[in-house]
């Protein structure tokens, strides 16, 4: 199967290792991976801030970049949700573009659900953790998979998976919100990190670059011994496709 990788701007810039893991995993499970070089951003920050003309233009551009491919995979839940759910209505008054957006929505997959539903990979069976893990459930994954799904992927091989008290608590990022209302965003971050730290686990699975930026930076500032990894990184490490991170 040929798969076009939609890396997303944050993963591209801040978390290249996640992209690397995704590429190697997809290849490992038999996919041919392409990376259309013209890709940038799906327009989510503009959409969330109410700049919908700008968001529509960027989404339209996405449809052109990915037009040649039958299948698009992205490691980011929020970008997948943007492309699949929030994006298409933005182009409603331009029928051909809208059509294209709906096609893109249809063929775009969030990485974990792609492994599960398209490649039938038993993630839980393949993962190896050497330590207790906890997880962050990205709010924007809600339309794609549930916290229970995420737990299911982690649980297996007798892993010690520690569920935070409120598994679906937001990390406080929220895009522009994080810098427009930094005090509130920071307070939400405190709540989140407190719950994560209280699990006693030191490794946090976080399948969302934006949340990771917020929580890693927050944990570092607060001196909390929490490390964050995308599930793809853990799976790639378990399969020997990626050197374990330092």
């Amino acid at each position, binding site marked *: 199967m040929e798969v076009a990788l939609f*890396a997303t701007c944050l993963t*591209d*810039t*801040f*978390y*290249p290792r996640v*992209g*690397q893991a995704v*590429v190697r995993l997809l*290849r490992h499970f038999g996919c041919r991976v392409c*990376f259309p*070089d*013209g*890709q*940038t*951003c799906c*327009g989510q*920050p*503009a*959409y969330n*801030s*109410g*700049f*919908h003309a*700008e968001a529509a*233009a*960027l989404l339209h551009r996405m449809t052109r970049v990915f037009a040649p491919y039958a299948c698009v995979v992205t490691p980011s839940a929020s970008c997948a949700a943007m492309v699949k759910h*929030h994006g298409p209505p933005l182009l409603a008054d331009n029928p051909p573009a809208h059509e294209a957006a709906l096609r893109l929505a249809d063929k775009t997959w969030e990485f974990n659900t792609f492994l599960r539903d398209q490649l039938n990979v038993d993630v839980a069976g393949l993962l190896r953790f050497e330590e207790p893990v906890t997880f962050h459930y990205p*709010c924007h994954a*809600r339309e794609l998979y549930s916290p229970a799904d995420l737990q299911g992927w982690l649980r297996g091989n007798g892993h010690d998976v520690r569920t935070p008290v*409120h598994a*679906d*608590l*937001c990390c*406080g*990022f*929220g*895009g*522009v*919100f*994080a*810098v*427009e*209302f*930094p*005090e*509130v*965003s*920071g*307070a*939400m*971050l405190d*709540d989140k990190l407190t719950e994560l730290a209280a699990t006693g686990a030191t490794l946090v699975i976080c399948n969302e670059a934006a949340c990771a*930026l*917020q929580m*890693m*930076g*927050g944990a*570092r*500032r607060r001196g909390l011994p929490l490390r964050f990894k995308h599930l793809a990184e853990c799976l790639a490490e378990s399969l020997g496709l990626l050197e374990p991170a330092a």
Partner: protein
Amino acid sequence: MNPTSGLRARLAEAHRDQRVVDAVHLATWRKVEARADAMAGLRHYAALRDRAAQIRQHTLDHLPQYLEQFVERATALGATVHFAANADAACATVCDIAVSRGLKLAVKSKSMTTEEVHLNDALLAAGVRVVETDLGEFIVQIDRDRPSHIITPIIHKDRRQVARAMARELGCPYTEDPAEMTRIARQHLRDIFRRCDLGITGANFAVAETGTLCLVTNEGNGRMTVTRPRVHVALVGIEKIIPRLIDLPVILKLLARSSTGQPLGAYTTLITGPRREGDVDGPEELHIVLLDNGRSRILSGPFREVLRCVRCGACLNACPVYRNVGGHAYNSVYPGPIGSVLSPLLYGRPAEELPRASSLCGLCYQVCPVKIDIPRLLVQLRTATRARQPRGKRLLMRAWAWAMDRPWLYRLAQRLMRRLLPDDGTGWINRDNHLFRRPLRAWTAQRDLLRPPPQSFRELWKGGLGDER
């Protein structure tokens, strides 16, 4: 406090009040868990929620005829139905009812519509004493405070604050025991209930088919209010209608569970007309004041769905922003997620910043018993005010979108960022080492900033990853 500007400062200030933040954390978490347990015990939660949303939306989509039916039925039963186009008219109508009948002492059951129109002030000015009888509202009233939650008005207060207010205002012995404080309030209000001549309530629902008002309460003050006084006035938003009696249980099954985790409120009271001939007790007159106050405008726009709200408060309890700032920071009768949608629609400009104060985490939608897609509505409201966003932000957003439309510029920006961001070898930027204090401060005040690693993903790809096998 300036209501038109400085939302960020207002929220930040609210968050600094540790006592409030602690109280709200405690109470909201408790309610979140109670709600979750209650829903988990409900056999057909998802189907009920779908149906409740359908009933509410259907009613809004056909409101005129249901309103008409309600008015017809209620009038036939002997109620007097009034219409108030706005807050002033509502106050004037109620004051007129009171003054023309020489009513002097009003008891009030908790009602958001009366808060919305500031009825107490108007009645006071007209020479009618109004006593709030819901325990929380009573404490708010004697402490000259404002409610901070639509269900739990004193969610921001701890027991010491309540105790001080009661000792000071009622002259009772100081006690911090909630049971004892409740007993004191009961005694105090019993005396009022004996003497009152006007009862004021809102209504949770108004049933078109039967002309019935439905009132859901826990303390019994609502029942007292519609039992003791000679005259009962209900101020009811026009959106509170539901079509038939049989539609009520669908919503009742969800309402109290959403609010407090109870299967039903302690008292669900159905009021169909005033006291009947021969009835032992009850009000001789029932006045129903139907309130528009901006609702018809909302009905005609793209935000109609927000009027499905049954005011259960679940979205407030679930909201991580509300939890960290409390209700006063919203500067509106309606705080929290539903308030962030409703307030700008009702009050316009002074509240128009509220929709931005959300991370769009979606928990409000998740818990809403009538499936109001609050995050989507918040985003939609943000589009409405983009022209009035700070100039810098607008420019930045446009420049960013322009650059993102040009991959070469995007790549250049990526590289520039790596070059320009300070590098002390740790891979991080924190408060101390970055050069651009101002633009990055909003981020680095709360968290360190990860420095982009030396190679972006696309560089890794070009540098060999793309050709790997």
